């Protein structure tokens, strides 16, 4: 009995909490992806590069003496015009063609390629590690947890809740959902659909940038940092249902737990194939994912 409690307290619980902090970050990334898909039908392959961009922006601004708390506001604000421009100048060019799913996917893939190389050009290929903005740790129930991870969990959950409130409880969110459900009808009822499109894309990009700021102190900063992370975010979005906000949250927290807990029993290098295997299974059995789309939820 005592052994079981020890096992729960010292092995399982810390692993689950680590999984939770990663899960919150993955959900933030996945939220941007899924909202963009739900509204625009665009799979943003450059999302990982926007995430890396946020981390590098934070690094540069911190070098100029901007504090961590200001970064949390400043970086997303800086990312908004970038996302807005990408939507207006790139996505809209192929948005009305018949193959827009595939064309926008290819276009954002190309954009990601360029952005990654631009980051390499500007910052060099080496790994950088910003200092942890919140030092120290706290002991909870005999477990020692770094304060920054606790902050990440709390802040991330608050942010997810805020996105939820905006999308489902405000007039702005109603416009977004209406445009996702039927853009022509929304447009004839006075919703500025084009601005909603650009704004939503910019919002998703800003969320990716913000995740970059939050995760930089944990996972270091390098130009290809988005690559591994974006795979996980895509998996989450697919399992949860493309374009579903509930789905992204549930699948994000669930899959990161699977990853964290399974790495106790199997070699951690095999937890990635396991998670992808789950994704392939979900796509086979229920291609639409666990939950419905943005406009229909």
């Amino acid at each position, binding site marked *: 009995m005592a052994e079981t409690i020890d096992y729960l307290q010292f092995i399982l619980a810390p692993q689950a909490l680590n999984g939770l902090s990663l899960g919150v970050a993955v959900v933030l990334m996945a939220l941007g992806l899924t909202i963009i898909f739900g509204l625009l039908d665009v799979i943003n392959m450059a999302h990982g590069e926007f995430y890396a961009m946020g981390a590098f922006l934070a690094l540069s601004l911190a070098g100029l003496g901007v504090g961590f708390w200001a970064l949390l506001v400043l970086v997303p604000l800086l990312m908004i015009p970038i996302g807005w421009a990408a939507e207006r100048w790139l996505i809209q060019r192929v948005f009305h063609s018949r193959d827009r799913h*595939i064309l926008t996917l290819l276009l954002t893939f*190309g954009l990601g390629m360029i952005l990654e*190389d631009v980051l390499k050009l500007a910052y060099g290929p080496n790994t950088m590690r910003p200092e942890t903005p919140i030092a120290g740790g706290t002991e909870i129930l005999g477990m020692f947890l770094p304060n920054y991870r606790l902050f990440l969990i709390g802040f991330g959950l608050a942010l997810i809740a805020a996105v939820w409130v905006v999308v489902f409880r405000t007039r702005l969110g109603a416009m977004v959902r209406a445009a996702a459900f039927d853009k022509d009808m929304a447009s004839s009822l006075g919703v500025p659909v084009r601005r909603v499109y650009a704004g939503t894309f910019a919002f998703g990009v800003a969320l990716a940038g913000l995740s970059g700021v939050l995760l930089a102190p944990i996972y270091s900063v390098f130009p290809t940092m988005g690559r591994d992370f974006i795979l996980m975010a895509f998996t989450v979005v*697919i399992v949860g249902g493309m374009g579903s906000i509930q789905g992204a949250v549930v699948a994000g927290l669930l899959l990161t737990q699977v990853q964290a807990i399974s790495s106790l029993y199997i070699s951690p290098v095999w937890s990635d194939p396991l998670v992808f295997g789950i994704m392939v299974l979900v796509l*086979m059995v229920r291609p639409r994912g666990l939950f419905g789309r943005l406009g229909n939820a």
Partner: protein
Amino acid sequence: MREAVMTAVSLPRSPSRGPLNATHWLALLFLAVALVFAAVAWTTGNGFYLRLATEALIFAGLAMSVDLLLGYTGLLSLGQALYFGLGAYVSALVLRDGAPSFWLATGAALAAGALAGLVGGVIANRVKGVYFALITFGLAQVVAKAVYNTRELGASDGIIGIPQIRVTLGPLALDTADPLSFFLFVLGLTMAVYAGLAYLMDAPFGRTLAAIRANEKRVPFLGFNAWGHKLAVYVLAACVAALSGALYPMLRGFVSPELLFFHTSGNAVVTVIVGGVGTLIGPIAGSVLLTALRSVVGSWTEHHLIVVGVIFMLSVIFLRKGLVGALLPWLERRAAARARHGRRSAP
């Protein structure tokens, strides 16, 4: 009946007019340029560029397999590297641990490609559109991570020390170690695969694929099995990719898990789009052009991704049918003009 479906929706320019149409002329032109290049490289004794060109042709095979799915059937595969890498690994293992036989290695790679293609095709063809792209992506990721973590397959180092082999073609024999003869061999093989696929795409099989691309729902009403055709083309594409992959270790003497990564699949898609989707010759030309471009830009700066990325995005936005697609109407106009001219000058 089938023609009626074709014209009801806007299809890519139907290439099947006459035994030798503009696309086939482009293929012959490409072959001629390649032979001139080989002659020049041989007289100047430049083995490096011959090897680079051979690699371009090998990746052209991968690009053709993407084009079969994307250009002819309308299925975007983001995981074609899975079959390319599988072919490369199987070929490498056969050459190193089995017999140093070209035919055994490619045969094994083709069999593995067909089998994996069958399994992958059954899984991927359950879904359509974007989901197809994502499931192929996911499948390739699972396998790539698995290979990357398997020590028996060399894990992150891959398999090295693959012996050079001697390929026997009836009375002829050539060494893969000799850059010129291996280049000519791969060139011949690539053009043979091109010819076979181009023929197949003009045959009823290919026309059915075009119908699936245009409107999949109507195909069963005309008495054709859409699912079976999609599975067949998926397996075919897997075999083409595996065959190309099988050549890679013969050229480079090693395989690495990078061959299986998304990078490889993504590059193949870029090649197809830049070269010309739905033309088969476009991907070959695109592969050669992009390899040359990377080599040239690479001599100035290591940041060739920016250049390639910009070209790729411009192709997506402005040249929907790629370089070959932009050239084709012009070539066809010229051919038509020449035909008119020929009639007028005839007595």
